[in-house]
């Protein structure tokens, strides 16, 4: 008990009372994700977009995990980005000059099989498969006249964390200018997420619904690195 109190007290002291030391090497960074389809910012439900091979679709949901952010040393932070909800994420990174920005789209294997998690990984977030354990790394839902599924649904739940069927992908982005992370200024990196690229070599009429790990999910995940690019640093 005493040990617990001491530990808690120390943690608080370490974060908020000790100037310098720990925090000096960290700076804050904000990543803002802007989601585009057909070069326009996506709108929920009401706009019809077209895949590269001309299939029309609307979007009702777009969420995905972003984790291990940083260049070099990955951080333990895990975020759930929601195109129609919180689309900016804020984190601490080691101070320094960054030429590139790298993150994992998805959740590390181990966290897929370590029991009940909290925070962004809370199964409440509806991103955990209940009958075939593991996280949905990327979820896109909507409708399309090209979909033969019930109610013309599109359900792209891309997940799978084991061996061959892994769907998390490391995304490494070149920065248009050097990014300085320090305590003085919190920069925002604006990242464009291009959904046209998600449909690269994919077709709604062939696979409107992907809700299990396997070849289809893996092929969809191979498009993840094509989708992201840095627009600007603010």
């Amino acid at each position, binding site marked *: 008990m005493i040990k617990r*109190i001491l530990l808690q007290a120390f943690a608080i002291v370490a974060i908020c009372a000790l100037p310098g030391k720990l925090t000096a090497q960290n700076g804050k960074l904000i990543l803002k994700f802007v989601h585009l389809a057909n070069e326009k910012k996506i709108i929920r439900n009401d706009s019809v977009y077209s895949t590269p091979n001309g299939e029309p679709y609307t979007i009702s949901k777009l969420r995905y995990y972003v984790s291990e952010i940083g260049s070099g040393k990955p951080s333990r932070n895990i975020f759930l980005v929601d195109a129609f909800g919180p689309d900016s994420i804020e984190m601490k990174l080691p101070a320094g000059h960054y030429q590139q920005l790298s993150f994992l789209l998805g959740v590390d294997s181990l966290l897929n*099989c370590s*029991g009940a998690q909290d925070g962004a990984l809370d199964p*409440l977030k509806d991103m*955990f498969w*209940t*009958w075939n354990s593991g996280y949905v790394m990327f979820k896109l839902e909507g409708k399309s006249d090209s979909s033969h599924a019930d109610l013309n649904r599109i359900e792209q739940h891309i997940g799978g964390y084991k061996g061959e069927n892994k769907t998390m992908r490391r995304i490494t982005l070149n920065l248009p200018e050097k990014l300085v992370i320090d305590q003085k200024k919190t920069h925002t990196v604006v990242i464009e997420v291009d959904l046209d690229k998600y449909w690269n070599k994919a077709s709604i009429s062939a696979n409107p619904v992907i809700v299990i*790990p396997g070849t289809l999910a893996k092929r969809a995940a191979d498009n993840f690195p094509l989708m992201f690019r840095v627009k600007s640093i603010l």
Partner: protein
Amino acid sequence: MTLVVALMAALLGAAKDDGFGPYKPTPLKLSIPKGWPKPNSDIFAKNKLTEEGFELGRKLFYDGNLSKDGATSCGSCHQQFAAFSTYDHDLSHGINNTFTDRNAPSLVNLAWMTSYHWDGGINHIEVQPLSPITAHNEMGETLENIIAKLNADSSYSRYFKAAFGDKAITSQRILKALAQFTGSLISSNSRYDQWKNGTLKFTPVEESGYALYKANCSSCHREPLFTDNSFHNNGLPLNRFGDAGRQRITGLSSDSLKFKVPSLRNVQYSVPYMHDGRFNDLDKVITHYTSGINYLQPTLDSILQKPIVFTERQKLELIYFLYTLTDTSFTKNKRFAPAQPITIKH
């Protein structure tokens, strides 16, 4: 610095005072029966097993509020007297007059398992409850609603505080507490165990049955847990639901019709048998192994390729041996029973 620490401690203490007294959980140790291997998954490494966590888990396990209709608790399908299977039902009843897709297995020695469900689709005991809770033909509920309902039930504050240090009700705590209860369901005191420990003698019939088991069944239903935690096709014809078992999870045709080997402990009480409850007594099970196996299935286990031949007497001997795996100190253990009577649908 000392002052700061003292102040912090005082503040933390004050913030946590909710009238239920200090947080002092009683640690429990998962006792590993003599001669058993270590549990496969160290399920309590990140979920400290305590008396208070177990008690909360037991309360949740028997609480119908975890389901949409308020009456379909875990315990309504997993009945203690049936070794936590659904007694005498091939399929169990979910909410709104639905049926489950599969037979409810007994819940026994889960801490030694490496995956859960007949197809092994569940990779950790803590996330298992998400499946029955959300399935429309089981409990049909959402975590949001459950948390709201438990928050509205004043009896829970005390339990969460005692188990986790404060009253907050989160999905993680619900799942961890349930795992403390289900992971503690250990059955290791059958006649067979007492015979192994040298405290009693088998009858000659039981001994012959044991020899038949050793020769024909033990490679998959391996001692002392009576499962090898693996997936095999034991030659059952495809059922009316087209349930391909393990293939549903791996997508591999080589896994077609493979199912997780169920433990045979308390098999006398976990009737009916197999993933769809197709056999309603042990005689039919053994007759399956002697004359029901579909030898044309490409994934049929190699061990079963050679036909098993039993005389009628041998069948009985084997059944008498299977009865020695019955552990009434488990099926009647008050620690595992509901604190109050619960609803069970028939």
